[in-house]
């Protein structure tokens, strides 16, 4: 950029490009990078901005700082072992990734879960979605200075984590479902704890709503900032709350119904300007809808088994394994290396509505050389369609012409999650 200017070598061998020629003094632009370990960049995205004073003239986004080889790792594990890697995709709403992957593999196996299992999966997904939106709105509000809202929402998120932990023992890396079934049944008292949690979350949401929605500073900092039009959003492949904030009512739970979303009544909130304020409002309303879904599920959940009865896929429960020889054989066949779940060759694309948008799993199973029955114990390729990759790709367009201080709320509103972005 200013190649010909003389560099003055200072102590400790640090070269400084000293502006020499008259053109350099006139130069207004400054290259600043909101680098990887910046608090508002969630630690793993680097935006190089060309600034003119406070104005962002142009910017370039660099990602890949949290690339952890998710797809390569999945190819080395068996079908059920790959679940631990799907936890760490969108690590804010982990149950949705697990359920999404399991539904994709079940579509490949063409098996269906009994109603109770589907109800449990729906409830876990909705609790995770509430936790996801709480984290996103809380962090975005904190980056705008509303630290109290962050603390309130973290407490609300603790209640959601307690619910998930009661079910599967872990708060974040839940591993909460298996291919073809669910690991556990609901512990007693879990259902009325759902009611208690929904009440608490609604109370905290009302408080944060009062704190933020009519707050002059919050509205001034977010209204009309980082806006994107409906056409450009579709060009960038937006889905989820971001696309709904632009006015397109596309929600995978309504448009490609899966689990039991079609049997419950809830609505899809849609904004119309597509700026940071609309995204905040859509997310707050979506949390309310998730609470409604949870209440209906807690009321209507049927009895019965939680896993499907196909013995080649689902482990028998413990009393069979130790009780009779068939249970022991089934257990042995599924656990020993080289046996496990045999998925026939084929490719399938299945998508669920994750916290950020349409999380699609393109799962390919191809028989390796020495497989006799044309099936494969390990996934050949697990491709995860990252919903937040489109939002980060559209960042340069959203922040062009804004002030540097507006880059932070825009980035906070797209809810970029590193694990899902870089996989």
């Amino acid at each position: 950029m200013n190649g010909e200017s003389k560099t003055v070598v200072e102590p400790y061998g640090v070269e400084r490009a000293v502006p020499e020629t008259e053109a350099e003094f006139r130069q207004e632009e400054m290259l600043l990078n909101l680098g990887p370990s910046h608090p508002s960049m969630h630690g793993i995205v680097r935006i190089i901005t060309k600034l003119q004073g406070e104005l962002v003239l142009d910017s370039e986004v660099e990602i890949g700082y949290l690339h952890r080889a998710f797809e390569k790792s999945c190819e080395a594990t068996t079908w059920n072992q790959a679940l631990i890697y799907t936890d760490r995709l969108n690590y804010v709403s982990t149950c949705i990734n697990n359920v999404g992957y399991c539904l994709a593999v079940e579509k490949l196996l063409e098996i269906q879960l009994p109603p109770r299992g589907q109800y449990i999966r729906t409830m876990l997904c909705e609790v995770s979605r509430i936790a996801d939106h709480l984290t996103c709105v809380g962090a975005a509000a904190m980056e705008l200075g509303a630290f109290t809202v962050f603390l309130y929402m973290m407490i609300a998120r603790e209640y959601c984590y307690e619910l998930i932990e009661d079910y599967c023992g872990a708060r974040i890396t839940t591993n909460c479902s298996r291919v073809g079934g669910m690991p556990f049944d609901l512990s007693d008292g879990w259902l009325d704890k759902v009611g208690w949690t929904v009440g608490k979350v609604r109370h905290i949401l009302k408080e944060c709503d009062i704190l933020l929605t009519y707050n002059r500073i919050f509205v001034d900092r977010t209204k009309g900032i980082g806006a994107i039009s409906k056409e450009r959003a579709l060009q960038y492949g937006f889905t989820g709350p971001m696309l709904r904030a632009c006015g397109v009512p596309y929600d995978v739970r309504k448009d490609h119904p899966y689990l039991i979303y079609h049997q419950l009544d809830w609505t899809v909130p849609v904004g119309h300007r597509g700026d940071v304020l609309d995204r905040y409002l859509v997310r707050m309303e979506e949390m309310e809808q998730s609470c409604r879904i949870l209440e209906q599920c807690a009321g209507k959940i049927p009895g019965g088994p939680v896993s499907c009865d196909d013995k080649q896929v689902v482990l028998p429960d413990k009393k069979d394994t130790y009780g009779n020889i068939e249970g022991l054989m089934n257990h042995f066949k599924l656990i020993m290396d080289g046996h496990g779940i045999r998925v026939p060759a084929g490719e399938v694309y299945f998508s669920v509505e994750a916290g950020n948008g349409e999380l699609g799993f393109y799962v390919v199973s191809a028989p390796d050389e020495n497989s006799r029955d044309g099936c494969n114990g390990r996934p050949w390729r697990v491709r995860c369609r990252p919903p937040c990759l489109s939002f980060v790709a559209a960042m340069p367009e959203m922040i062009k012409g804004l002030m540097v201080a507006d880059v932070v709320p825009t980035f906070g509103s797209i809810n970029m999650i590193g694990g899902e972005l870089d996989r």
Partner: protein
Amino acid sequence: MSDKRSPTRLVRPDFTDPLRGQVYTTRFDKLLGWARKYSLFQYPFVTACCGMEYMSASAGHYDIDRFGAAFPRFSPRQADVLWVVGTISHKLAPIMKTVYEQMAEPKYVVSFGACASCGGPYDNYATVQGIDTIIPVDIYIAGCPPRPEAVLDGVLKLQQMIQNSKQPWRTTDVIERKPLKA
């Protein structure tokens, strides 16, 4: 100040202080250690899922501020403890090393979670198998992600280690620390 009661007594390798010879001034070191252990400013180098548990640990429920170690300083110049939270990929390793070197003395490093301590579930081409191959680490917090209680325990262990180790003071030569498995 007797430490018989605490089961594990983490003592950091002594710094040889060229100026003051081998005299171990306990009274003054204890005072200095006490002052330093209760005013830890942290630089949260947060990358992945452990960041969620870091949020829970520093939010209202499991408050880390009760131990005086919660105030995040987002500039290495003002930070005492570098919290490496989450997976460090090979692309991020040079940046972490730069941030570590730009921290002011005395500095400590807490490796938060399995990914930072030993690569965690990611034994592949993209992940650093433990940050102690790059920078010296003082406290490892195990867990993927560690529960907030484990994080608080890690802070207590760090404070105990600071209290019991010999405090570097009034030295101007570069304090050379070798990473454990360099």
